[in-house]
Structures are given as C-alpha cells and as structure tokens.
C-alpha cells in the first residue's frame, strides 16, 4: 500500500470516529450543550482539556520553536504548563462551585454589573476568534501537504466535521471527540520521537534521551549539539542569551494567559464535583506533559539531525558540506512546499547552513569561500517531516497527518464553543432576551455555533494580515483582563463593580496599546511607532511579555478604585463566601 493510500485510510478512519461520536453524544438540553451535563469523569475531562489546549501550534510548531533557539525558548514549556497550577488552585474549583455556564456570566454576577459582563464577552470573543483562525489555517495546510487537496477544500472538510459534532453535541459532543483526538495526536507525536531517540541516543523515552549520550560520539547529546552549532557560528543551544527580565515576564504572561483562556476554563465546568475540578487539572497536565516533555527532546534531536545532514564533514573544508546532488528525498519533497529553501550563493553546488548574522564568524566564513547562509528551514517542518527524516514507515507519516488534524480540530471546537456560548448565553439570554425558553436557548446556541463555524471558516480562507500576531493578542487579553478579574472575584471580597470594570479596561488598554505600538495599530502594516526589536522595548520587555504588566495594572486599578468606592452589597459578599466552599455544589446529571 502506498503512503498516500495509508494517509487517506488513517485520516478517513479518524474522521469516521469523530462523526460516530457526534451521533452518539447529542445534546438534548442547554446543560448538556454548555457543560456536558456536568457528568464528565475527571480523567476523561483531563484528556479532553489536553486536546482542547494543545493546538496546531503545540503539535506542529513547538518542537521547532525550541530547536532553533534552545534554552531561551524554555519559556514556552514552563509557561504553557505552569498555568495549570494556577487553574487548579486559583480558579477552576471555585468557578465549578459557582455552577454556571460561561466565564462572562461569573464576571457579570460577581461584579453585579452588566458592563463588566460585556467587557468580558468582548475580550473572550477577540481572544477566541483570533486563536481559531490559526487552527483553521492549520487544518488547511495539513490537508494540502498530506492529502494533496486544495487548502480551501481541506478547510471545508474540517469545518464540516466540526459542524457535525459541535452543533449536534455542543460541549458533550466536543468532550468525547476531544478524548479521541487526544489519543490520536499523542500517538502521532510520540512514535516518531521514540524512533529518533533510539536512533540518536539508544534511549527509548525521548525525555531521557535528551540528557543521554549520543550514539554518534559517546559524549552527551547536548554537548555534541552545542559544539556542532557553535562551530557554525550559531548561539549555543543550552546557553542563556536573552534578557532575563523579559524571559521571566514572558513565562508569567503565558502562565496567567493560559489560566485565563475561557475555552480552557469552561472545560472544568463539565466535571461532577468541585474536588473533581482539582483532580482534573492534574490529569490535564499529565496528558499535556507527555507532549511537552517530548517536544524539547524532538527539538534538540531534530536540530542535531538537520545540522549533521548538511554538515557532513569538517567545518570549512570544501567537502565538509552536503552536495545538493546528494540530498535525501525528504529534502526535495519539502522543498516543493516552500518550507525548505536553498539558494546556492557561492555557486559551489554544496549547501552551507550557518549563522551569517554573527559578525565574529564572518571573516572565517568568507575565508572558506562561504557567501552567506544558503538554507532556510521553516520551524514547522521539524515535526511534520520527522518521520521522513528518520525514514519511518508510511503508516507513521499517515498518523502524523491525522495527529495534526486532531490537534487543530479539537482546539477549534473548544474555542467555537466558548464563542457560541458567550453569544447565546451571555448576549441573547443574558442581555437581549432574558425570557427565552430552554428550547429557544438551545436552538440559539446551535445557531450561534453554526454561525461561529462559518465565520471561522471564512477567516481561515482569508486570514487577515495579523493572523501571525494573534497569539500575542490572545494571551495578552486573557492575562491582562480575564485572569485578574476572575482571581479578584474569588480572593478579594472588597473588589466591587466599578473597580473590576475599570481594572479590566485599564489592563486591557495598557496591553493592547503596548502591542500596537510595536506591532502596528490594529496590526496594520506600517503604523507601528517603533520597530519590534529588543533595543526599542521599554526595559527590554517584548510586546509578547506585556500581559504580565497589564495584569498588574488591572490589579492595582481595581484595588484602589474599589477602596475609594462603595463596598459590594451583602448578597455579593455571601456569593463569594459560598463559592469558596465546595459544600452544596449542584449534583451531577448522569449520562
């Protein structure tokens, strides 16, 4: 059987499974549509949360982010996992006790303010819509590369699958599909990693292989990698080369951003008990960690493989570099996608892959007859092409295709649910038509979901120019507005309606303006005040890291404004008392 047939079979089988789950897990009530009837087992919810959280970016791009930078990008590893500690002890159990369906609903009730609720809805929609664009384009790209259909056709197929289980099943359908998607994506991620780890270090588990000795030389893999790349003028892999303050703030922004992302928080509304919300956060992190502990190993090993493939002999000797005529087949396959590019600058027919930005290395390189770096490698390729680089069988390649799609679709569905429930529950039921019937609200939820899918598909087909910047925006908004509002709502009884609303607005504006100053106003090209490089950043803080400072602004404004204005009414103080104690949470609905 050809690899192409295998890819159709494996991807087709996973899609059939998702549709099967959609038919089995239909939602009959709003409780099932918004919160899966609160009957999801904590381990299952952990698995669904892991799939919900790990996006196309985690699956495809993370290893590459680590590979090309090394230690300094550990921020992603710590930031995207550390947020779960905050979720487990600062947010999830209390919001589960509150027992409603959406994040803006908590903010509106706790701060007895319709405007606070609307601000939260806006933050939620902006953060989630920008995030969902990346997932939809990820679906299109994966289809185009692996199934050889047009990117747009791929996007329509992906959207149709999500439509089936999200519109029919709501949270209930999404939950069980995410569990299946987790299994697909984690299998697809770990199998190639194990093969590569065995090949390079003779160690089965990639996270142990990262710190093991290389089979190539007998010295530790990381020592060999450091030597290999510093010889080519690159910064060392294990060294610390960036601003420490920025690294701390970026990690913190990712952590509180993670904890504040509504599509992650609502997953914890689906478990039967408050105690389950705590356990479930632990299980979610276990399932996430399987990928996040594998990714840095894949990154280091893939970088090692790549450099060794190109630099076949002694650095500087004319025969030391791979001749283009001898490149392996995966190289030419991926060249066609544009993810690998080679330009023979010194016209010697060989590939030079080195750091031509390193001025100290320049004279040396020129003496060797090198005329600039000739190879550009897109970071995403490290995971996508891994099975081919390691010469793994066709079914592994098929699995990676299905895994990439699972990662993108599961995150897209979670985001779409967060968006549609904010529309049907917070805007329609909460603001426009409070007297809507149960059946009417369920219908509104399904229609909102269908509309959200249509908008996401449109934006996936015509991604706005700022799509690449959206991660900064999504995390910035969640970190600076949603996380502090939720945390203060639970831990600081004295914060009132005015304080919370102004705090959110202040944090939000501060963060968005700082991002716009460097990235362009509303991300329009050419409208930025300063170039987005380290020497222009205030105290070296990058726009990606500013969410932490925005959160501090939010806390400070909310605190002082609340002190200066009236104490929250007694019933709100009682509400805070009650969410702090698990006793009396709503009973589970079995299914």
């Amino acid at each position, binding site marked *: 059987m050809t690899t192409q047939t295998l890819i159709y079979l494996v991807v087709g089988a996973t899609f059939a499974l998702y549709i099967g789950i959609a038919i089995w897990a239909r939602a009959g009530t709003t409780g099932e549509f918004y919160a899966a009837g609160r009957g999801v087992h904590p381990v299952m919810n952990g698995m669904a949360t892991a799939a919900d959280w790990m996006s196309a970016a985690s699956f495809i791009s993370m290893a590459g982010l*680590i590979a090309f930078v090394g*230690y300094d990008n*550990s921020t992603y*590893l*710590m930031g995207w*996992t*550390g947020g*779960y*500690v905050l979720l*487990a*002890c*600062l947010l999830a*159990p209390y919001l589960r006790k509150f027992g409603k369906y959406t994040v803006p609903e908590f903010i509106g009730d706790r701060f007895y303010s319709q405007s606070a609720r609307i601000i939260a809805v806006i933050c939620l929609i902006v953060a989630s819509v920008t995030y969902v664009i990346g997932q939809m384009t990820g679906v299109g790209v994966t289809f185009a590369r692996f199934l050889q259909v047009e990117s747009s056709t791929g996007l329509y197929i992906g959207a149709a699958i999500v439509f089936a289980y999200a519109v029919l099943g709501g949270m209930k359908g999404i939950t069980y599909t995410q569990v299946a998607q987790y299994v697909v994506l984690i299998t697809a991620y770990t199998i190639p990693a194990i093969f590569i780890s065995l090949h390079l270090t003779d160690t089965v588990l990639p*996270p142990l292989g*990262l*710190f*093991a*000795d290389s089979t190539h030389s007998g*010295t*530790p*893999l*990381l*020592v*060999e990698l*450091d030597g290999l790349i510093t010889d080519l003028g690159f910064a060392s892999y*294990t060294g*610390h080369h960036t601003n*420490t303050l920025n*690294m*701390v703030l970026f*990690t*913190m922004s990712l952590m509180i951003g993670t904890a504040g992302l509504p599509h992650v928080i609502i997953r914890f509304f689906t478990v039967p*008990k*408050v*105690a389950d919300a*705590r*356990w479930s*956060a*632990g299980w979610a*992190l*276990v399932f996430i*960690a399987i990928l*996040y*502990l594998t990714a*840095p190993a894949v990154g280091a090993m893939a970088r090692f493989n790549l450099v060794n493939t190109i630099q076949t002999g002694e650095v500087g000797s004319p025969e030391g570099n791979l001749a283009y005529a001898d490149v392996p087949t995966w190289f030419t396959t991926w060249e066609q996608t544009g993810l690998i590019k080679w330009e023979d600058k010194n016209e010697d027919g060989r590939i030079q892959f080195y750091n031509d930005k390193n001025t100290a290395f320049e004279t040396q390189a020129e003496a060797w007859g090198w005329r600039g770096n000739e190879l550009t490698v897109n970071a995403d390729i490290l995971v996508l092409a891994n099975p081919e680089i390691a010469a793994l069988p066709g079914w592994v390649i098929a699995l990676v295709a299905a895994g990439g799609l699972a990662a993108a679709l599961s995150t897209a569905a979670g985001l779409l649910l967060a968006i549609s429930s904010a529309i049907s529950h917070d805007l329609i039921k909460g603001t426009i038509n409070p007297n809507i019937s149960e059946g009417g609200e369920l219908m509104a939820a399904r229609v909102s979901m269908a509309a959200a899918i249509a908008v996401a598909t449109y934006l996936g087909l015509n991604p706005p120019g700022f799509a690449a910047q959206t991660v900064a925006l999504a995390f910035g908004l969640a970190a600076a507005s949603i996380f502090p509002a939720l945390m203060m709502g639970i831990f600081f009884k004295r914060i009132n309606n005015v304080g919370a609303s102004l705090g959110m607005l202040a944090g939000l504006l501060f963060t968005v303006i700082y991002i716009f100053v460097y990235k362009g106003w509303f991300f329009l090209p050419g409208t930025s005040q300063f170039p987005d490089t380290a020497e222009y950043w205030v105290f070296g803080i990058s726009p990606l890291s500013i969410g932490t400072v925005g959160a501090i602004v939010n806390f400070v404004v909310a605190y002082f404004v609340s002190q200066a204005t009236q104490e929250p009414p007694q019933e709100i103080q*009682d509400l805070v*008392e*009650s969410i*702090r*104690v*698990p*006793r*009396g*949470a709503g009973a589970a609905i079995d299914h």
Partner: protein
Amino acid sequence: MRQGSTSDEAYWKANLSLIRNILIIWALVSFGFGIILRPLLSGIAIGGTDLGFWFAQQGSIIIFIILIFYYAFRMNAIDRKFGAEE
C-alpha cells in the same frame, strides 16, 4: 444560606496557606531554578548541561504535576476536616 461561618473562615485560611506554599514552590522551580537562579546551579552537571537547563525544560513541568495532585489531595483532607465537602 451561610452555615458555620467560623469554620468556613478557618477552612478558607487553611486553603490560602496551602496555596501560598504551592505557589512558592511553583515560582521557585520555574522562575527561580529555571531562569533567575540558573547561574547558581551551573556547577551541578546533568546529562551534558546543568541543573537549571533541566528545570527549565523538564523539572518544572514534572514538579507542576506533583504540586497539583498534592493540592487536590490535601484539599480533600481539608474539605473533610472542616465539613466543607460536597
């Protein structure tokens, strides 16, 4: 209805002090050992690099998992002690 307000207050205090301890370790392993204190740990070698690198790429994640399960486990005991469980 609020029941047993004084015991609820003691319950909340116990929760807060547990959270404080959890977050101290959370910050120590990531921001501390993984980033700021890495130079101090540079003498401790592990698999071709130093302990700080290990904390940044693996250790912190493993400890985060342990912290959450420890929190969930301790909170169950605290819930029972103060009669706050469901």
